[in-house]
């Protein structure tokens, strides 16, 4: 979920020519959405790892131009550096492969990789260079965004290359389309939000890699159970002390092995919060009014508007919260 903080630019360009998402879906659209949500990733036996790679927190990246393909919309054409992105998607794929190799060495047998990064519209990992055992979820839109395809058959959830929360001092820090996202009053970053969705299915987070800010804030949310890997130390929003990619890969290999060992020993409880969840989200300051109205018009969800840019969803289902995230993504990406 990289480009959220740039979507405002896109919208400024597009407003007036592109209508926001229609408030009412047709019956056919609803049926189609329901069919997509009901689907599962093909089942495989053995210990299953669900891996969500993002790019802002991977080894070496510091600048959004390194994680954008330039094709995400007219506004990005000059705000990216495709030559750099091409290089980093190779490194991204190698990070994922290292993580899989580590998990495999500790007994994991099935791997699903769900693109967590919006560059190239969620198509950054190189399918032909990816570990040949891995099923890859790529493209956009997809029902649960970063946890699309996860279910209770998975033994663990891992995040690589994650970034720190919106408003924090991390490299390329943001949270989906929000300035602030809380559940029951607790501030959650993207890892925390998806940990809650997975937690409801009994799946816990065993590995998180990213900059030092991300790891510290995620500890506050999820506790000490997961293996945290600091890939870089933020010294600015677009600057960091970084390690060699080879060193980062070695850390991921070892960390993923340790993560699987902890999971198999039952040492990491799933992340859960009290139901019903009170989800409060504040859309980014930078977004134009049309976009806020687009969110307000999402009739599928019982959203209560509690401020100019703030909405509340009360629900017993973290999955529903995930569907809401997808719906909001579809509003702001248009």
């Amino acid at each position, binding site marked *: 979920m990289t480009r959220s903080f740039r979507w405002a630019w896109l919208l400024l360009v597009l407003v007036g020519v592109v209508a926001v998402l229609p408030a009412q879906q047709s019956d056919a659209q609803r049926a189609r959405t329901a069919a997509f949500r009901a689907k599962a990733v093909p089942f495989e036996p053995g210990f299953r790892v669900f891996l969500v790679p993002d790019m802002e927190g991977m080894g070496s990246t510091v600048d959004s131009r390194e994680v954008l393909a330039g094709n995400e919309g007219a506004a990005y054409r000059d705000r990216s550096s495709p030559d750099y992105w091409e290089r980093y998607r190779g490194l991204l794929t190698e990070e994922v492969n290292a993580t899989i190799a580590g998990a495999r060495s500790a007994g994991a047998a099935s791997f699903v990789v769900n693109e967590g990064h919006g560059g190239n519209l969620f198509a950054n990992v190189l399918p032909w260079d990816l570990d040949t*055992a891995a099923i890859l979820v790529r493209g956009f839109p997809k029902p649960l965004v970063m946890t699309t395809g996860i279910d209770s058959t998975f033994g663990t959830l891992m995040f690589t290359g994650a970034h720190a929360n919106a408003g924090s001092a991390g490299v390329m820090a943001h949270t989906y389309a929000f300035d602030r996202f809380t559940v029951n009053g607790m501030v959650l970053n993207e890892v925390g939000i998806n940990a809650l969705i997975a937690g409801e299915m009994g799946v816990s987070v065993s590995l998180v890699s990213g900059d030092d800010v991300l790891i510290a804030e995620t500890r506050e949310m999820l506790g000490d159970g997961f293996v945290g890997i600091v890939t870089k130390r933020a010294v600015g929003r677009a600057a960091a002390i970084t390690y060699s990619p080879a060193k980062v890969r070695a850390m991921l290999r070892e960390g993923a092995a340790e993560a699987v060992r902890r999971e198999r020993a039952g040492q990491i409880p799933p992340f859960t919060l009290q139901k019903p969840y009170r989800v409060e989200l504040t859309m980014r300051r930078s977004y134009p009014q049309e976009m806020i109205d687009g969110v307000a018009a999402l009739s599928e969800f019982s959203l209560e508007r509690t401020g100019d840019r703030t909405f509340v969803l009360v629900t017993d289902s973290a999955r529903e919260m995930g569907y809401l995230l997808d719906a909001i993504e579809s509003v702001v990406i248009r």
Partner: protein
Amino acid sequence: MRGLLSAALLLPVVLPGQVARDTTPPDRVFGVTEWQLARQKLEAEMTPDGFTVYIIADMEGLAGAVRNATEMRPEYRGGEPAHERFREELTDEVNAVIAGARAGGATQFVVNDGHGGTLFRNVLPDRLDPEALLIRGYPKPIVMSTGLNPMVDGLMIVGAHANAGSPGIIAHNFAFDSFTVNGVALNEAGIAAFIGGEMGVPFLLASGDDVLTAETAAMLGPIETVTVKTAFSGSAAAVLPPARVHRMLHDAAERAVRRARAGELKPLTFAAPYRVRLCLRRGYARDEWVRTTVGTFGGMTPDGAEGCFAMTTSSAEAVGNVLNEIEWTVLKP
């Protein structure tokens, strides 16, 4: 012109009034003799002995493919470098099918490039199995069934996409929102099966996303299918590793040829005369010139909603020719 062709080919986009129309009647480009000649020429290249597989190579249903705008067309027509990698994947998947079919007893291979992204020039000739005949380029008679003839023993489609209106990856069906024969909806694989079926050629194998394989099996019966990905939207999917897909294609093609040789797979047939009903894509249907032109084709009569036509004929190849004329009409600026 090329850019417009590209857009029209891959998306329901019509840009009327920008360039003067080429009003050459389609039958001057695709007369009856054209497709019969193509058939004769292919027959002349084939040996009557052995087992011949005719493979239609499309791209939307390839392992890994999810996005039309970037992956399905070359840079010079608005796509991205990723398309080049998918051409390799396309060729590798076709090669896997050929190798599997050969292991099952097939002896002759015809590959028809069926994807418009590079104007039907997507398969990489120097990477393709050297024994295969490759039909490439556009325009060509009956698009995806060029030269199809009774000497072919089985039809296969690789990288196919689901039918127009279905919840599959980059789902569409030639220039149509719907296409039925005697009331049965057919996707692109189904239309090829209909044309081949009349000649006694059975359809053996289809690969693509979960929506494509399910709908094609429902249309054509117990053919071999290879599901290479699970669609999570029209442009997102859980994709199997390409290397695994190649093994699956190999094994399915081998099984398909064995089953065909054992007489297990039957041609798709309909009771003649065929009543064909088609509705142009909404964008095309709104274009008066396209609508009017299609209405002039032999046997076509307006049927129901704007842009919907029906024809009754006893020749599936003639239907294929009309389909080709329609394709040519909508692709013209």
